[in-house]
């Protein structure tokens, strides 16, 4: 049954969508989908909804939360902390009440949060969809957005080092309508896949999107995968051809990434 409801999260009520089935019915696995960061989340809604429906059709209970300060959940973007988001994720897992195994799926920075959650839950598979390998990249991207608006507007030119200095002084920055707190900037920088090897999961699924066909994984991803393989982590990886829908101008569907995720899921 498709569901949409509010759940008490780490610092306020968070909005969850997905599908849950009667606990007395057939036993189903549980899947938690963690969306990407800021504007990327808005652009990804259609794709993640399609993935959620595919997982339901494949026999999962599925929930996807709007984390605190995002989407339809309570809280302001400027008040987000990593610990609140961790508590949101844990509350969503608790609501899923996984009896038959829990699968975590994350897109972009959501993938970092999923890898971060592995240590707190018993996880079957961890699916990383075009993961942000290091949270610093996401921060760099946010700062660039502010610098890019400077390029367009004329006015006094800011530099990346000035912006970083202000964050270091605890000053929040407004970027494309999002209030980026010094706390969240630091929290983002603290997350990196290289430091979160998911040694306790049964397997990892790693999918990247490339606009051109027949491309290898990005070098930064390959380095992490090689390191994880050397720790005996089982990884299936694939590069799918398609537009990077979380960043495109127009809202785009991406059936290829959903199909690839479901295929690797079924393997």
């Amino acid at each position, binding site marked *: 049954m498709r569901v949409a409801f509010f759940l008490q999260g780490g610092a306020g009520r968070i909005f969850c969508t997905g599908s849950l089935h009667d606990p007395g019915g057939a036993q189903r696995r549980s899947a938690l989908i963690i969306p990407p960061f800021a504007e990327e989340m808005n652009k990804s809604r259609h794709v993640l909804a399609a993935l959620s429906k595919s997982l339901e059709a494949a026999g999962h209970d599925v929930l996807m939360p709007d984390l605190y300060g995002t989407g339809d959940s309570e809280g302001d973007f400027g008040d987000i902390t990593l610990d609140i988001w961790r508590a949101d994720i844990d509350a969503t897992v608790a609501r899923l009440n996984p009896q038959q195994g829990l699968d975590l799926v994350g897109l972009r920075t959501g993938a970092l949060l999923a890898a971060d959650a592995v240590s707190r839950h018993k996880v079957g598979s961890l699916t990383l969809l075009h993961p942000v390998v290091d949270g610093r990249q996401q921060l*760099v991207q946010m700062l660039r957005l502010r610098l890019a608006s400077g*390029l367009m507007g004329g006015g006094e030119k800011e530099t990346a080092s000035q912006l970083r200095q202000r964050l270091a002084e605890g000053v929040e920055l407004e970027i494309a309508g999002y209030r980026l707190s010094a706390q969240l900037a630091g929290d983002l920088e603290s997350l990196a896949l290289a430091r979160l090897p998911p040694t306790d999961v049964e397997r990892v699924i790693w999918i990247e999107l490339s*606009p051109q066909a027949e491309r290898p994984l*990005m070098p930064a991803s390959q380095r992490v995968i090689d390191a994880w393989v050397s720790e005996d982590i089982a990884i299936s990886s694939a590069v799918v051809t398609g537009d*990077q829908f979380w*960043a495109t*101008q127009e809202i785009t569907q991406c059936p290829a990434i959903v199909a690839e995720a479901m295929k690797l899921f079924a393997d």
Partner: protein
Amino acid sequence: MATFEQVRQIVGDVLQLGDRTATLEPDTALLGNIPEFDSMAVVSVITALEDQLGIFVEDDDITGETFETLANLTAFVQTKI
């Protein structure tokens, strides 16, 4: 060596220009000319150049001129390789 062709393809892919990609010339103006080229697009283009060409862009090196024309952008990328 990143060619003009590679940079044009990346810009066209990011902006989803489709057939219009092939009409971009070295002196085609980008910022202020192509309607899709907003600040979000600037960020996406830089990220795509880094990911696909394996370069690292120092943000303080980027100026308005970098994104004035496709030739400027190509020249900028070539200094990073």
